[in-house]
């Protein structure tokens, strides 16, 4: 279990993390979602005691991480796969980590095998691809068989096979009852792996909810219907209390189901060529939610269907 209580980090005038409080529970994968520069890595570093919070505190298993007696038994973390000395072999790197906590040296080969690096343990890390470095970082995180795992953007730079492997690994670690906290700036990635989401933007908490609720609560769905008799269909729908707008040959309805539209058309014998429900994509949901909180923007946000925006904003509040 990880707890953040009012975590705050200020760099000069910049508030990188702003009064962040959340709890990460065991047994599920919790996604830590936010655009680049939202403060995800800083928060993770504060949880691990690498950065000192300006205010607030973070607890792992009920106490500050720095007080852990056997730290690698409590937390395994992969922050940046490039955070290793390239001059060492993978074995020497892991052995030094294992020795520092008094873990048996036999764990080194075990975690190398687990992460698919069994045959390259004697090679220098400097020659590793980014994917191999990610696996090595995960091997280091698994050394102490810890109850809490933290991964910062673990799928960055991985090939499709590596991405599948990480998703499976995170879910199986959670299924074993561990706390798994994984950051990403990709909503689609989180939708596939995380059951729960902690969403931040500009260091502030935007949402702390289950992934399902997050998507349901923030996505906008709309019924679109194509008909050769748009005026007649719009009229009958209005009679039944549904407002339809005509957009590019389609009628769009924000407050009706496909069943209601189909029934209305059938009652008057109107022809329908196409009828479907459209949901805004996960990335759209995320973009809407974090639009005010992206650190670096390339200009005005892309324009989207006008009726989507207020709905998504409201849901986010």
């Amino acid at each position: 279990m990880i707890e953040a209580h009012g975590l705050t980090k200020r760099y000069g005038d910049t508030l990188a993390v702003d009064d962040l409080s959340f709890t990460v529970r065991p047994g599920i994968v919790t996604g830590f979602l936010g655009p680049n520069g939202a403060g995800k890595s800083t928060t993770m570093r504060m949880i691990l005691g690498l950065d000192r919070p300006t205010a607030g505190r973070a607890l792992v298993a009920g106490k500050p991480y720095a007080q852990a007696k056997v730290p690698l038994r409590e937390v395994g973390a992969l922050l940046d796969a490039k955070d290793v000395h390239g001059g060492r072999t993978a074995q020497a790197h892991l052995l030094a980590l294992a020795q520092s906590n008094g873990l048996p040296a036999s764990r080194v080969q075990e975690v190398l095998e687990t992460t698919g690096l069994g045959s390259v343990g004697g090679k220098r890390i400097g020659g590793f691809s980014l994917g191999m470095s990610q696996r090595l970082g995960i091997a280091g995180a698994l050394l102490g068989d810890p109850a809490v795992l933290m991964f910062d953007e673990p799928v960055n730079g991985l090939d499709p096979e590596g991405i599948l492997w990480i998703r499976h690994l995170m879910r199986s670690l959670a299924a074993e009852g561990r706390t798994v906290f994984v950051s990403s700036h990709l909503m689609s990635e989180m939708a596939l792996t995380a059951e729960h989401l902690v969403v931040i933007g500009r260091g502030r908490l935007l949402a702390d909810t289950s992934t399902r609720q997050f998507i349901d609560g923030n996505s906008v769905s709309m019924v679109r219907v194509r008909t050769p008799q748009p005026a007649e269909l719009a009229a009958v729908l209005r009679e039944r209390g549904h407002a339809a707008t005509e957009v590019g040959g389609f009628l769009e309805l924000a407050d009706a189901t496909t069943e209601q539209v189909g029934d209305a058309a059938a009652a008057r014998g109107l022809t329908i060529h196409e009828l479907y429900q459209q949901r805004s994509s996960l990335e759209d949901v995320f973009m809407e939610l974090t639009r005010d909180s992206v650190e670096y923007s390339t200009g005005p946000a892309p324009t989207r269907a006008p009726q989507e925006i207020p709905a998504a904003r409201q849901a986010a509040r």
Partner: protein
Amino acid sequence: MSTALTPARGDLQAARGTTFGNVLRSEWTKVRSLRSTWWTVLAALVVCIGLSVLIDWAIVANWDQSSPQDRAAFDPVANAFNGVGLGQLAIAVLGVLVVSSEYSTGGVRATFIAVPRRLMVLGAKSVVMALLGFAVGLVIAFVCFLVGQVFFATQDVDTSLGSPGVLRAVIGAALYIAGCGMFGLAVGSVLRHTPGSITAVVALLFVLPLLSLAIPGSIGDAVTKYFTANAGQAVTYVMTPDNSLSPWAGYAAFTVEWLILLVLGLLLLRRRDT
């Protein structure tokens, strides 16, 4: 949804954690597993011993031209270590790298996640560096001393380990070399930046001690006497020159100097983000 965590294997549960012994073992693994460590040690051996031997040869070859005063003041121990003044820089650079290479590569984050007790990490690094520096120093000191005496014997100005002060000066040379490693480590712990630290170490141990000779008057004498390498090398003299501290006073001054830097590094370590 949530299941109980499978109990870990006994050998993992039995792990004793970040004891000083464990952290020390880990830091030694880190130092010995880098090729750069052994290249730096080799450079120290080659420069210290090679240059000392060349100067031994030059001293003996020019003995007839030297003045009677120079001959009377000839220190057959200190003069066997004439290459150490340059070769010490390799050990000092090793000391810098032991700390700064972790920061330049980012490996320090993996280190502090595994061992959040940072002072213990720097303490373990210091012990590893002191022991490695002393071991390398012993090899350099004894080889330089013994080879030097072979040269000096040709002019009958050699000495032996049994003579007064000689063993102290030879062991002192090893201690001085270890101190240079610690000086580098201390500078590295303050600056954390490899090129900057190496520049600082070369300036403080090599360039400025020589330049300090140019400062006039009694202030200049004091600065020269107490300046890092000048002070530390006093322990390698059997015949203490006029402008030098006594052997152990000099070594103590040098030690206090790097200890101040190391304490500063420790204080900064507690406060800084990584």
